[in-house]
């Protein structure tokens, strides 16, 4: 019986090998026909060869899986398609990564409220790094000008534009806190947002349906919605991209701070922490007892915003 099974398997293998090219060709023909058809619908006829390739890629992109269900090969394939699409659609040479998290890393962040001067270099660096929509002036970070004694940003001024720092005020930055017990993840009906093993809460922009439940669920205003097609001037696009990070978003999807996943998984500081001229932003591996972030947690007065909600953010405020 065992040998019979083996024989059957071998036959199956042979058939597959023999039929491989013809079946693939067959599928390819269908795809090109379908692509040409859909391209024709979009452009109103006469699709050139470049547009048919574009349409075929778009077709494949449309039917891909949720990122978390993809095999490493499938991840590489979709990245390759997106890189090619950027070239075809916008004549842009981008480098996209699907770099996996490092093991034994849990990212954490600390913000020094007695050092921040409200210069907002972090906000500008974030906008540039993450290809944020310039039309709607989308920003992941908001800096609040606060009165002494208040620790709730809702009491502060989040739209100040005058010389800073102002005597007697302090400044408090708010962004996604990458909560361990994140309400936004629970609210998502399509599992388009989740926490990576290194603690970063990410969005699969292609799986997001734009319902904005996560935006409503987040108690920290950490999420942003693309009401229109995001616009970034051609020469300002950051071409160093990550699938789960700063790749170009589209109309109708959520986005948020990703601790600059495209930078931090390469060992770099997030753009905000790198840009801060006052050293108010501390970033590092929470599991490393020698890291700066652990020193802050062990030696400084720290607190978390809305601790009582039980969201367990990985973002602490501290003071000198």
């Amino acid at each position: 019986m065992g040998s019979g099974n083996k024989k059957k398997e071998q036959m199956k293998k042979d058939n597959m090998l023999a039929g491989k090219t013809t079946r693939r060709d067959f599928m390819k023909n269908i795809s090109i026909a379908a692509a040409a058809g859909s391209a024709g619908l979009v452009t109103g006829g006469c699709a050139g060869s470049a547009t048919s390739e574009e349409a075929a890629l778009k077709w494949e992109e449309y039917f891909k899986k949720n990122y978390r269900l993809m095999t490493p090969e499938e991840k590489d394939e979709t990245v390759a398609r997106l890189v090619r699409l950027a070239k075809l659609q916008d004549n842009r040479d981008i480098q996209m990564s699907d770099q996996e998290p490092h093991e034994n890393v849990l990212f954490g962040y600390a913000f020094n409220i007695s050092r921040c001067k409200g210069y907002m270099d972090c906000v500008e660096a974030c906008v540039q790094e993450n290809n944020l929509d310039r039309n709607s002036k989308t920003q992941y970070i908001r800096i609040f000008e606060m009165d002494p004694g208040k620790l709730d940003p809702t009491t502060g001024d989040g739209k100040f534009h005058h010389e800073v720092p102002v005597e007697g005020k302090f400044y408090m930055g708010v962004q996604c806190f990458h909560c361990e017990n994140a309400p936004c993840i629970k609210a998502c009906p399509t599992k388009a947002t989740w926490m990576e093993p290194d603690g970063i809460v990410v969005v699969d922009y292609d799986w997001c349906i734009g319902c904005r439940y996560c935006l409503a669920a987040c108690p920290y205003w950490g999420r942003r919605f693309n009401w229109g097609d995001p616009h970034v001037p051609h020469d300002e696009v950051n071409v160093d991209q990550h699938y789960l990070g700063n790749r170009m978003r589209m109309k109708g999807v959520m986005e948020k701070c990703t601790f600059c996943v495209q930078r931090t998984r390469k060992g770099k500081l997030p753009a905000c922490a790198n840009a801060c001229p006052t050293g108010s932003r501390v970033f590092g591996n929470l599991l490393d007892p020698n890291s700066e972030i652990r020193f802050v947690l062990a030696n400084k007065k720290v607190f978390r915003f809305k601790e009582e909600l039980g969201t367990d953010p990985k973002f602490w405020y501290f003071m000198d």
Partner: protein
Amino acid sequence: MKKIILSSSLFSLVLGIMLLPGQCVWAGQGAAGHGAGSVLEMIKDAQHSLDPMRVESAHQLSMKTVDAQMPGPDGTFKVLARKDQITRYRCSVCHNDKPVQVQNGALYTHSDIVINHGKGENKLACVDCHDNKDRDSLVDKQGRKIDYDHSYQLCGQCHFRQKRDWVGGAHGKREAYWAGERVVNNCTSCHNPHSPAFKTKMPETYSLPLDE
């Protein structure tokens, strides 16, 4: 020539439909983060942490650094070098016995430097930090010579709280990388030693009003 693999997409379409009701597989890890308790518990229970030196992409600093002359939390660490940044170092090129031309007097007397360091009337004088005898060096209050690259030892005499935080990582900042070798900014990377307080200025950008 582009390779188009449609079979995989059709397969994934079918698979996607099949998997739609089966998403409970993810529920555990998705909703409750890492499923290992709170962040503080995870920190407490952590047995292993990534060796930061193993992140290969974090070893590309182009700036000149020196080894700090004191231990950090994890043995030695590096500090951005200062002497390269001082345009007119070495000081002894001018500060010697040779006469200087008078038409360059304004430049040679450091008339561009404004000292605003110290409280109220008790502003510091040049020789509070600079060595009067050896101009290529700083000097601390015990008369020890201090290299410009290691000025944190001088600043730390008065600003010892800031120095303690700087050594640990709560004051100042790392240069470019959280991983790799620990390289931190020197005191003088951020502070002008002659006028160390940060200036008031317009912010880099602004935010639109909250839509509430």
